[in-house]
Each structure stands twice: as structure tokens, then as C-alpha cells.
């Protein structure tokens, strides 16, 4: 197999032999490429991992948004009619009305009851996940507590709390993420909603996907604010999109820094190739004398440069994947996450960049070697 390749690509065979004549020098030049590839690839992978990790912490809320009263034109509450209009906009949406208020709560400890933020929610199991216990359906008189609040007052399923003079039982402790930044339940108590009030201060709308959520949000803005500015719609996905933009800019900057090292590696290849051109001046003259065309010499020298690039690049790719796995292990907790298309894209870009940089660096020495007159080379 190798023999057949060698016969097909004599320039590559000659190049390999020539590079192995100066093993240390060739390895050092290739090492420059390795460092360049690792720099670009691991900085790229690092950026993507950080972005993924931060977006992940913000919650999987791209498909969720919140409708609140706009505060203008005397609109301070949302009504059943608003819910109906939202439901009319999208048949796939899950609409969860909420009402927040502040009530005196006694956690059963010593001291007076404290003022706590309560969130009355219809069907809380739609928007919240539990750490402990389960959300009964319906919640009736039960109460759910946010994680921080539960830790602070040592609450768990079965604990009793006194809200505004009425004793209620804690059913579950709920996780803080996964429900959007405007509704973070961490320090809240969740109770079932009293729909007889028919007034709400926010409505959470969930859609099966982010694209649908976006379309619904736009439609709600259009139809509910038709005559007057009634509602405002807050989408977390917009926020995440902006974070994404910032991260892409940071990533380009990081990869830019990484490519400086590849640029330096290219100069080192240029240097090594020039040295080898000078040292092998007579030999190249002989090759030209025995019938090598200029382009044959060019091919041979470019093959040397590309071989340095490809070998260095491959080693760099191997090391980058190892480095990427370590980065992913520590940031994302999953070493195998390095094999995501976006991260592998950075690795491939680094490799391609290495090969191109090597060939570009080899151009001048190759041209110099090929254009030397054999009679001049042999005279020396």
C-alpha cells in the first residue's frame, strides 16, 4: 500500500527522505506546528465549552417566555381575557398564569413571622421540577418551597408552614433553574392559584420549541398590544442569543491569539526550508542536471513543507482532542463532550490552517530552490 503511494507520489517519498536526514530540525519545525494547532484548537474548544456551560446554566428556557402587564395606560394586572387571547394565538402553547404577593410566613421557628414572596401558580408541575418530594395535582392547600428557602429554614416534604395564619404542608422542594430568570423560585413559596380573583401579574407561556416560542411571542405582542400597549413580553432566548454573540466574539479573539503561534510556526518552517535549500544547493543542482524539471524540484520542496504541516497538524489534532477532553471534563463534567460538531470544527480549522500555513511558508524556499540555475549551483 505504502509502496504504491510512494510510486504514485515520488515527490512525497523524496520529501520524506529529505526530512528524515535532519530529524531533529524537522521535528522542531513540526513541533511549532503542533503548538500552533493545539493553541487554536484548545482555545476554540475552551470558548465553545464555556459558552455551552453558561447557556446550560441559564436554563433550557429558549422555548419559554413571560407576559407581564406593561404598566402603561393603567394596565397593572392581566385578566382571564388576556389568557384567552394568548391561547387563541397558539394552540400548542401551555399557558400558566401566576400571581405574586407578599405574605407574613411563620416557618415554625422562634421569632415573629417574616414577610415572604409567594407565587400563586396554576398547574406548577408544568414549570417546576422537584429536588425532593413530588408536586401533587392539584396542589390544593399544599405548598412548594424554593431550594434556598428550604435550606435556610430546614424545610422538606411534610414540614408545616404558617402563611398569614393558615397552616399549610410543604409538598416538595423545587429546583431553582429551568424556569427563567424572572421567575426564579429559589427564595419563594409556591401555592396554588385562586382563579376567582381573575387577575394575574404574569403569564408564563411554554412552546414545544424555541422557534415556535419566538413566533408566538411576536404574535402576542402584535395582537394583545393592538389598540394600546397592554403587555410586555420577555424572552430569555433573546438574552441567550446576545450572550452567544459575545462568546462568538471572544472566541474569534482567542483563536486569533492562537493563530499567532501558528504564524510563528510558519516562519520556523520557512527558516528550516531555506536552510535546507542552501545546504542542498549542489544536490538540487545535480537533480536538475540529471533531468529534474523546475516543477519537479518545486513539487519536492512543497511536499516537504506540506509533510511537516500534515504530520505536525495530525499530532496537534491528537493533543488538542486530549486537551479538549480535559477542558470539557473540568468545565462541563463530560470529557466526551469534546466530540461535538462545533468543537471538532475548531480542531479541523486548526488542522487546515496548519497545512495551509506550512505550504505558504514552503513556497518561497521551493521557488528559490527550483529557480536556481544548475550551472550556478554546481559551480560552488
Amino acid at each position: 500500500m505504502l509502496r504504491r503511494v510512494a510510486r504514485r507520489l515520488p515527490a512525497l517519498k523524496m520529501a520524506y527522505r529529505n526530512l528524515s536526514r535532519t530529524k531533529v530540525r524537522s521535528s522542531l519545525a513540526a513541533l511549532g506546528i503542533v503548538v500552533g494547532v493545539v493553541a487554536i484548537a484548545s482555545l476554540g474548544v475552551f470558548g465553545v465549552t464555556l459558552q455551552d456551560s453558561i447557556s446550560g446554566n441559564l436554563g433550557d428556557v429558549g422555548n419559554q417566555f413571560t407576559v407581564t402587564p406593561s404598566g402603561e395606560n393603567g394596565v397593572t394586572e392581566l385578566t382571564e381575557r388576556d389568557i384567552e387571547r394568548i391561547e387563541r394565538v397558539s394552540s400548542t402553547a401551555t399557558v400558566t398564569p401566576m400571581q405574586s404577593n407578599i405574605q407574613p410566613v411563620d416557618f415554625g421557628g422562634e421569632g415573629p413571622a417574616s414577610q415572604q414572596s409567594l407565587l400563586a401558580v396554576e398547574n406548577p408541575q408544568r414549570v417546576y421540577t422537584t429536588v425532593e418530594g413530588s408536586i401533587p395535582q392539584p396542589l390544593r392547600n399544599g405548598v412548594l418551597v424554593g431550594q434556598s428557602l428550604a435550606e435556610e429554614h430546614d424545610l422538606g416534604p411534610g414540614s408545616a408552614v404558617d402563611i398569614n395564619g393558615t397552616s399549610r404542608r410543604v409538598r416538595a422542594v423545587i429546583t431553582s433553574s429551568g424556569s427563567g430568570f424572572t421567575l426564579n423560585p429559589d427564595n419563594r413559596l409556591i401555592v396554588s392559584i385562586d382563579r376567582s380573583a381573575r387577575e394575574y401579574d404574569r403569564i408564563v407561556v411554554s412552546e414545544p420549541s424555541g422557534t415556535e416560542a419566538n413566533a408566538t411571542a411576536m404574535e402576542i405582542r402584535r395582537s394583545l398590544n393592538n389598540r394600546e400597549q397592554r403587555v410586555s413580553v420577555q424572552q430569555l432566548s433573546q438574552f441567550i442569543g446576545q450572550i452567544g454573540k459575545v462568546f462568538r466574539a471572544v472566541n474569534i479573539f482567542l483563536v486569533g491569539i492562537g493563530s499567532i503561534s501558528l504564524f510563528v510556526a510558519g516562519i520556523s518552517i520557512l527558516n528550516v526550508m531555506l536552510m535546507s535549500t542552501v545546504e542542498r544547493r549542489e544536490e538540487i543542482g545535480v537533480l536538475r542536471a540529471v533531468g529534474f524539471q523546475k516543477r519537479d524540484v518545486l513539487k519536492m520542496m512543497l511536499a516537504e513543507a506540506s509533510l511537516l504541516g500534515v504530520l505536525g497538524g495530525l499530532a496537534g489534532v491528537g493533543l488538542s482532542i486530549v486537551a479538549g477532553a480535559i477542558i470539557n471534563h473540568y468545565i462541563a463534567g463530560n470529557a466526551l463532550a469534546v466530540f461535538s460538531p462545533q468543537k471538532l470544527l475548531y480542531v479541523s480549522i486548526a488542522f487546515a490552517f496548519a497545512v495551509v500555513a506550512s505550504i505558504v511558508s514552503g513556497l518561497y524556499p521551493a521557488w528559490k530552490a527550483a529557480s536556481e540555475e544548475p550551472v550556478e549551483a554546481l559551480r560552488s
Partner: protein
Amino acid sequence: MIVDASGVTKRYETGNEVVTALDDVDFRLHSGEFVSIMGPSGSGKTTCLNILGLLDTPTEGEITLDGRQVKGLSDRERTTFRKQTIGFVFQHYYLIPTLTATENVTVPRTFDNDPGAPERARDLLDRVGLGDRLTHKPDELSGGQKQRVAIARSLINRPDIVLADEPTGNLDRDTGHQILDEFARVADERDVAVVAVTHDELVKEYTDRTIDLIDGEVC
């Protein structure tokens, strides 16, 4: 007649000075002839060889090689023509150190996709008495052996002419005799014209005729 050169003149410009390396030289060479060009250093021997070998072009004069006028050939055409008709042997052998004897002999065929080249190389090495040194690298060979590898290399393209620049310059007397024997055999058996440029008087014993060059002129 394989080479017909007439009125060949070569001038170099160095600074404001014009140096005439060859001055109106006429030269004819027949197949199977072994000719030496002799003369002191700076007499224009190597220039003459380079012009005959299509490595250099004359300032004036006409050269016909194997019936073909060489004036006006492009670099690429000259290289191809050189490859087809001329073999070179150098004083310093110029073998590639990483290649074995056989591989060194096949170097001129590298870009030709010529699967028969290694077999021919082994045959040529066998004929110059290196049948047992086929896989040796240059640093494992003596000076005389290296020069034989170079002779085999010069013959791999089946040339009409072999040009040798000081072929015995780096060899002791005995080895020199052996190498010159080899050239004489090449000329006889293969009907190849051999031109050796040298200032080694020993060469005269082997050649059919000698051309003496002094200050670029034939004496």
C-alpha cells in the same frame, strides 16, 4: 556525429570586466568516442562541459546535438533534451546520502513512473562491479565505488553522451585507472560518446583523442 559545435564563444560579465571563457571553439564528437578535454584551471574546460551538457548557453556559436539545434530551447525543453541524451558524472559524485546505491541510480527516473528502472539500475551496478553493493548507502562505499554508482546513474536514461567533470579528481591512482577503464568500456560496449574534462594526465592513456584548452582556445 553526435555533437557538432562551431564557433562556440562564452563571455561573462563581472562588474565592468568581460571575461571570455571560451573563444570560438569548434568541436565534433562521434558515437563511441572517448575524448578528454584538458587544460589548466580557468582554461574554460568546465564551461565547455556545461555548454555541451545543456546546463549553460553559449554567447555565440551553434551547437547541434543528436541532429537537433539547441539554440532557442526553453529551460523545460533543454531539461527534457538533456535528460534524453546526456548523462553526468561529477568529481564529488553527488550521490544522495539517504538513498541506497540502486535508489541513487534510479534518481533521474524518479518522476517518470518507470517500474523497470530498479531492475535496470541493478543490472548497471552489476556491470560496474557493484552487484554486491546494491543496498549500500553512499557512506558505506569507497570513493571508487561511489564514482561507479555515479557512472551507473549517468547511464540509466540510456544517453548518447556521458560528460564527466574531473572523474578521477578525488580518487587514488589505482582507483582512477579502474574508473577510466569503466568509461572506456562504456564508450566501446554501449556506443556512447564520453567526454571527460580533467587535468589528470592519466586520462590520456584511455582516450581516443585529447583536446587541449588554454585560455578558452583550442590549441
